[in-house]
């Protein structure tokens, strides 16, 4: 009983619980939901799909968590920046104005790094507007939200650029001989780098203090604007990486559709992870769990065969339930209820004891 209570009071308990609940719903419809097999030399199963397809949102959620924590605002440009970095990468690989190519104009790694760099440039721009010019995050990132996709379209000469070069597909699919989807490795790498950065340096602490009170942090010697700038830069780089993964999946740069509405999923992931959108304290692991929860819902709806026009409604209902369960007001209500019950039980036992004594 005591250990159960300890477990439920952990910060990550509720996000994890919600994700497992979503997964368990599937067992009712298809008992083989959790089965993982090896097919064609690669892992094959719904769980693998969730981990694989959830990669982009998880990578975005890492950057978004830092931005939310440091500036109490959201970066809504991440989806558009994904599209821009994918377009930049494909444009460089294929050459400007080429619709489809089987031969690369520059080495693949150069194109990919250029894509990630474009994401970094966007992050720098957002960071400058928010940290130096003190523009509200949503307004500042609204600029790239509208512009980045359009710039991507210009880079690709208003068309979908296809890179029909086998190794380009590796990042979003499988590297021959390795049974695990490559995107999972990319996600792990991103999470590892960022969490090392947060754990091994005092960056995590600094971000929290700036998020809680940026003036107080500055007075105590932390350069608030530099920390804020850094978070936006990291968020931009994450968007760039996510964009390259998304582009590799379809071996093309579909500027109109890559990362469409992903900014909303990234913000939702942060919220589902139990993080306050008001900034300050944050929990990276929570956001990542939130990201995979969103993907689990999407995969579940597909697996259940929910018709596409009803799917958004059901998704909304699930999200509402998860958010309500995690709301502080609801938690407090549950606690007072259990406290009252405990008090009643204590009263009962004392009554019994008194009766026995008599």
């Amino acid at each position, binding site marked *: 009983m005591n250990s159960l209570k300890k477990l439920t009071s952990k910060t990550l308990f509720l996000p994890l619980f919600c994700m497992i609940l979503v997964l368990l719903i599937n067992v009712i419809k298809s008992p083989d939901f959790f089965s993982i097999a090896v*097919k064609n030399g690669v892992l094959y199963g719904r769980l693998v*799909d969730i981990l694989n397809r959830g990669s982009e949102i998880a990578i975005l959620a890492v950057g978004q968590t830092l931005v939310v924590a440091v500036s109490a605002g959201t970066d809504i440009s991440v989806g558009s920046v994904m599209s821009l970095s994918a377009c930049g990468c494909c444009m460089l690989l294929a050459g400007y104005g080429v619709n489809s190519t089987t031969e690369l104009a520059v080495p693949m790694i150069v194109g990919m790094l250029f894509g990630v760099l474009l994401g970094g440039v966007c992050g720098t721009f957002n960071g400058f507007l928010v940290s130096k010019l003190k523009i509200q995050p949503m307004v500042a990132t609204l600029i790239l939200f509208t512009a980045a996709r359009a710039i991507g379209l210009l880079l690709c000469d208003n*068309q979908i650029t296809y890179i029909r070069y086998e190794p380009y597909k590796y990042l979003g699919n499988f590297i021959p001989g390795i049974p695990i989807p490559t995107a999972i490795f990319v996600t792990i790498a991103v999470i590892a780098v960022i969490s090392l950065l947060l754990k091994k340096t005092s960056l995590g602490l600094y971000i929290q203090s700036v998020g809680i009170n940026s003036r107080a942090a500055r007075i105590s010697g932390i350069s608030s604007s530099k920390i804020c700038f850094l978070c936006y830069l990291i968020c931009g780089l994450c968007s760039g990486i996510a964009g390259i993964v998304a582009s590799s*999946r*379809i071996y093309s740069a579909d500027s*109109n559709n*890559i990362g469409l509405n992903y900014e909303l999923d990234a913000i939702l992931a942060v919220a589902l992870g139990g993080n306050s959108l008001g900034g300050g304290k944050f929990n990276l692991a929570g956001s990542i769990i939130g990201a995979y929860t969103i993907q689990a819902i999407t995969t579940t709806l597909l*697996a259940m*065969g929910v018709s596409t026009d009803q799917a958004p409604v059901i998704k909304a209902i699930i999200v509402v339930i998860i958010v309500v369960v995690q709301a502080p007001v609801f938690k407090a209500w549950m606690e007072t209820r259990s406290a009252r019950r405990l008090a009643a039980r204590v009263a009962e036992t004392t009554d019994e004891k008194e009766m026995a004594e008599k």
Partner: protein
Amino acid sequence: MKKFLALALSLVMAVSLAACGTSPSTPAASGSGSAGSAGSAAASGSGDQLITVGFAQVGHESDWRTASTKSVQEAFSKDNGFDLQFVDCDNDSAAQLEAVRNFIEQDVDYIVIDPIVSTGWDTVLTEADDAGIPVIVIDRTIDDSDKYISWVGSEFTNEGLAAGAWLKDYAALKGISELNILVIEGTTGSSAQIGRTNGFKKLADENGWKIIDSQSGDFTQEGGQKVMESYCKSYAGQFNVVVCQNDNEAFGAEDAMSAAGISYGVDGDVILISFDACTAGLTDVLAGKINADFQCNPLQGPFCADIVAKLAAGDTVNKETYMEEPWYVAEDALTEITYTNNAGNEVTEPLVHVTQDVVDAAY
């Protein structure tokens, strides 16, 4: 310092706005100049003066749209005796109304519109009518006004019906008695999705085929990939036909089926049907990955030019023109299909066997 910065920034903005403003206004200015002369040309009937045409296009969101734009631009080129004013409205319906009003003010000879939304057109089309400018609507439809001369576009239901008719004959030819079909639909509510779904479903119901599941892939490659990935797990070994409502979804479905080790196409276990027939789609038909591809013709240009020629000669034109849409197949075993089209007429249409020449000639 800050004030200076703000001033500098606002100056930059003003200059860039002015720059943006001048570039479209240059053709507009020259257009209005030539519009007057073209008007007199039309009146005098002399051949060496240009006929002005205003074209308000939706945007440039897909290869299909780009092909449509190019087709109209080529049909109304200078060499053909036209002066085309092209406005890309970037999916902004207010901008499109404004563009059409501009055309009326400049008194162009003809207006071509691909309406972004189907309503809200009555006022501006009445203005055009009063000014005596014939309006031709292409691709999408206008619902709340009939003050346009003609509409040119695709009959999506026929595309779905033709796909069903081909599948019926193909299954009979191959001796497949039981068809279990998975459909990857387009964006829910789009006219292409509704027409293709209804057309195909009609044939499926008539022939007792089983449509196992039908979900939306949003007309994108990633959408097609995601939905097919899920289908492969939910209905492993239970399906032998996959219908994708555009080529991009078909590419995604191909990837997902390859990953799941399911063979498809000409020699495969699964028959793959697609719509749109863009160059990349036809390349896959040629390679035998897609069995049949039903074109949605984006080349409205020649049809518009034809209407303009008829109007200039004083002939009447049809209110609706459905474009010819070829059906492409990977094998030459079947040469034609017969079906009852949406208008209720029984038609026999040829099937085009895809060769390298066909792919090269595609849009």
